[in-house]
């Protein structure tokens, strides 16, 4: 394993509560994006994006469709590597101080640290139990007690345990849409990431299921750094500490969520959140 990935792994886990610290503006930046340009083939999708994402906060990306918010999200765990024509222009993204586009970075290790929940819930066609332990099994962990423990811990973490504890061996696809999405979150928690990326996790859910997922996000931010892409501005206002507004591939404004929604600095931001376009 390379030096770089070791650095990613050996991040000290500081329990803010243990240290008696409050969540403050002084939270350190876990993800730093600087002057980042990104292309799909000839088409530039992101222009000179720079931002800091703080540890143990919920950061929301908002903006109209095609503004590049999902693209940026998928750059943070290098899921864009899968797209043939995708390439980086200039700039860099660092996670915990490591340039993740460095050649020596192992994407497998990176994706374990930076989990992802997709827009369309995609549980594997396996049992609920197997869905949760998938990430552990592919790491070669087979001890039953360890897997059992992980299943209970993660399903509890994803607020799904009470609903499914009696039918862990039924298919993940037998769950309702909202439950499936929480199962996907539980699955992501199992590999113990530091960061959770959520790509419009509630876009296919009804209001009740959405409320549950939002509640879950609230509890998760004690332990995880969360970046959520949403096209629902109320959702951004409800769940996030900071909000970044994107338009046509550019970061227009980023600030504390209250600030963005009450008194945005930029006119475009105001126009968007007041519903005049988008």
């Amino acid at each position, binding site marked *: 394993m390379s030096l770089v990935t070791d650095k990613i792994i050996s991040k000290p886990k500081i329990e803010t509560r243990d240290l008696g610290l409050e969540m403050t503006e002084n939270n350190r930046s876990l993800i730093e994006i600087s002057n980042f340009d990104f292309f799909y083939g000839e088409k530039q999708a992101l222009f000179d994006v720079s931002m800091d994402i703080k540890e143990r906060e919920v950061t929301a990306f908002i903006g109209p469709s095609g503004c590049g918010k999902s693209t940026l999200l998928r750059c943070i*765990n290098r*899921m864009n590597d*899968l797209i*043939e024509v995708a390439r980086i222009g200039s700039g860099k993204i660092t996670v915990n101080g490591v340039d993740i586009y460095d050649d020596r970075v192992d994407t*497998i*290790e990176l*994706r*374990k640290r930076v*989990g*992802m929940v*997709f827009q*369309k819930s*995609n*549980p*594997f*066609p396996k049992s609920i139990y197997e869905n949760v332990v*998938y*990430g552990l099994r*592919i*790491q070669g962990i087979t001890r039953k007690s360890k897997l059992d423990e992980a299943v209970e811990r993660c399903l509890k973490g994803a607020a799904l345990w009470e609903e499914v504890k009696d039918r862990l061996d039924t*298919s993940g*696809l037998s769950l309702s849409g909202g439950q499936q999405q929480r199962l*996907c979150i539980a*699955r*992501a928690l*199992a*590999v113990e990431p530091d960061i959770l990326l959520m790509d419009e996790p509630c876009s296919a859910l009804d209001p009740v299921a959405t409320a549950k997922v939002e509640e879950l996000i609230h509890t998760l931010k004690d332990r995880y750094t969360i970046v959520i892409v949403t096209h629902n501005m109320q959702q951004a206002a409800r769940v996030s500490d900071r909000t970044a507004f994107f338009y046509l591939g550019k970061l227009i404004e980023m600030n504390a969520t209250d600030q963005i929604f009450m008194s945005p600095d930029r006119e475009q931001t105001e126009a968007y959140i007041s519903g005049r376009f988008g």
Partner: protein
Amino acid sequence: MATKNMETLSPEALALYGTPTKAKLIEQLVFWGFRVGTYFVLACAASIFIDIFYKGGQTVFQSEYPFINVEFLTGSPQTLHVFEFEGASYEMSDSAFRVFKEEAGVSIVSDTYAYSGGGIWPCIVGTLLLVIGSMVIALTLGVLSAIFLSEYSRPGRVLNAVRLSILNLAGVPSIVFGIFGMGLFVLAFGWNVSLIAGWFTLAFMVLPIVISASEESMRAIPQGLRDGSLALGASKWTAIRTNVLPYAMPGILTSSIIGVGRVAGETAPIMFTAAYALRDHLPWQGLEHWYDFFFQGVMALPYHIYVVSMKIPQNEYTSRMQYGTAFVFLFIVAGITLVSILLRIRMRKKYRW
């Protein structure tokens, strides 16, 4: 009641009941065209099956216990002797005839008919071995290349060329595969007429079917499953192994069912590469080394039908043999197909998505 009402209806309303128009007539004609076409195919298939089942059944089954002609299913092909002895007429295969002559102690003059006595056990064994071996090779090679084509390759000229050649391969007549197999495996590789040469020749013949169907079933797996496992820290191969292949397997097996039928049925590819017209030893008999198993020719059902029909004088005794062989042959292909279908159903149940 309807007719009574119709008299009181207005002309506009009556028009709803419709009048025969040209369009409707054409509709009827076309419909009958489809129907006749379908029934014609059905009739052809039925006449073939009924003919083979009726005539072949007479060879395979018999009226007295054990009702199945055991010698036919378990014996080797032999010459049939037909003779009269002490007023009674007999039909006997060669080995039985020798014993009979020994016991009678006199020389008996008989009419002999080549290949018309005994059974077809070595052909059954040979066909099963050919099918199993070539399907193992075809599925291995086919799935490997399908994984490459659908998961790893980059779209472009090379990929198009590969696809085009696979398509072309599917259109090559089987006799060409036979000659090719003889040239490459039998002569150039020096494998002689052997099981392994037949396996590879047959495998190459069904490879296009297996590849294109496997690729198709892998492409049908939602991208979300791949993304989901990659996002959990799976390598590309792990994602394919755990979340693509298992769910594509039922589709791949479906394609191999078609392949099994072709492999079992084709005569041309094995004619020069694997099939013997007559062989006394069964494949596992008289082997000096274990690997000799792969380098021996075998008898096979389709080739046996061909030999009995084309290579020897025809008469009532040979036609019994032909129909019996065809009957068993159909039965075996149906059996193998049934097993693959059951396997597929089981897999579908296990991996439903």
